[in-house]
């Protein structure tokens, strides 16, 4: 049976640990050996939304495993511009590749692609819903930074309403235990209530809301910053009102605990000043590096090839 990577809700804790263990193992596999893992394999990238890291790291991951990547980075250069439906596009492109990677502004698109296609499908972001490959690389980064996923106090900051990386990561983290989440957002960008599970469904996980970034910095192990995403706002005036609600700079980090780490899925706009990059707290480019190795782990897992 084929395997997809559509939603964190589909993954057990064991599945997640499998991806993390494989990524850890891949760190030790020599580059020349990796090149022999997927020779001749073709990955199709279907990106209906802009992307830098996700698309390029998937393509680089495939190339480093000996395969090739083809696809489109904008739908307006395809028959979608002529009105072709998603279903027909998937049924067409699946003839040209061994695995599909899809990003789309509408929620649930990757699920539809996974149902239609006989190939493994990777959700590279579906609207405000999920971004599971980002989540797996975030979990891998957390594990490498802290040596554990659990017994951590994590602040999510910024756009918690529309951020699919936050939605995905919270869905994954609640499968672990002993976690305290501090949710820092403007009133209009609060985390949707349907993402907060009833207490009986998670092991010792708490949620608390605040509007104080300073307090979160002083009390948390990890601060996960997010960009306020212009493209998700139905009302541009509301975007203007909240776009710079939380800006992290080196001054705010004065006196922060030394073990604090800052993550961000990138791209950033104004929410993290460049002065933070030079501090020991900054871990967002570590995420970028980990993204390549985790996406290799995802491709190997879904294509059923040993590392």
């Amino acid at each position: 049976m084929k395997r997809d990577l559509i939603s964190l809700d589909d993954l057990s804790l064991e599945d997640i640990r499998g991806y993390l263990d494989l990524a850890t193992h891949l760190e030790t596999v020599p580059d020349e050996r990796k090149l022999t893992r997927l020779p001749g394999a073709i990955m199709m990238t279907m990106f209906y939304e802009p992307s830098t890291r996700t698309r390029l790291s998937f393509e680089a991951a495939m190339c480093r495993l000996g395969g090739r990547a083809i696809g489109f980075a904008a739908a307006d250069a395809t028959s979608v511009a002529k009105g072709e439906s998603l279903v027909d596009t998937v049924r067409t492109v699946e003839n040209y590749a061994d695995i599909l990677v899809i990003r789309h502004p509408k929620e649930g698109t990757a699920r539809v692609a996974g149902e239609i296609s006989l190939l493994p499908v990777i959700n590279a972001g579906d609207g405000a819903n999920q971004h599971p490959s980002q989540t797996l690389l975030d979990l891998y980064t957390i594990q490498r930074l802290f040596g554990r996923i659990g017994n951590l106090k994590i602040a999510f900051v910024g756009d918690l309403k529309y951020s699919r990386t936050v939605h995905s990561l919270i869905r994954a983290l609640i499968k672990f235990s002993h976690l305290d989440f501090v949710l820092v957002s403007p009133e209009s960008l609060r985390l949707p209530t349907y993402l907060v599970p009833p207490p009986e469904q998670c092991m010792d996980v708490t949620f608390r809301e605040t509007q104080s970034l300073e307090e979160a910095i002083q009390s948390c192990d990890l601060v996960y910053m997010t960009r306020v995403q212009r493209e998700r706002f139905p009302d541009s005036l509301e975007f203007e009102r909240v776009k710079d609600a939380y800006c992290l700079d080196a001054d705010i980090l004065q006196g922060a605990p030394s073990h604090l780490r800052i993550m961000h899925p990138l791209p950033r706009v104004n929410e993290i000043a460049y002065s933070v990059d030079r501090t020991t707290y900054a871990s967002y480019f570590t995420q970028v590096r980990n993204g390549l190795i985790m996406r290799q782990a995802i491709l190997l897992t879904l294509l059923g090839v040993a590392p």
Partner: protein
Amino acid sequence: MSDTDRVLLIPKIDNGIVIDHIPPGFGIAILEIIRRDPAMRDVVVTLGLNYHSSKMGKKDLIKLWLDELSPRVVQHISLVCPGITIKKITNYEVERRYVIRPPQSARNLLRCLNPSCVTNTEPNVDTNFTMVDEEKKKLKCMYCERVFSLKDLKPIIP
């Protein structure tokens, strides 16, 4: 006028279906679901509103002169109004009765409330909901993964 007299305002049914214990106000909504099933076009139907009920205080009631309700209509009704009773009447006697429960999943019965859900933006994509909290009647869209209260979701009328 006594309660018995009032009940007699709806004729007794010899052979057919009685939908009973409908919370007051829901009778018309259920009739609307039934009416839109093409197979129901020529069926004789009576509707009673605000009848006295010893269990519920007041209730609505529908009688249909037909053999069976289609499974799709029953599913639709169960989503709009779970907990009501359906009785199969033969020769003026209740041959069979069952209480309908909300289904554990509903494919192409309800419309997703999320305007950015792929089921609202792509043609030929069926909706699909799964019950995630039976007590609070919460359903999750299997595509956009949002959770909604059943009372907020609108049925898809074929």
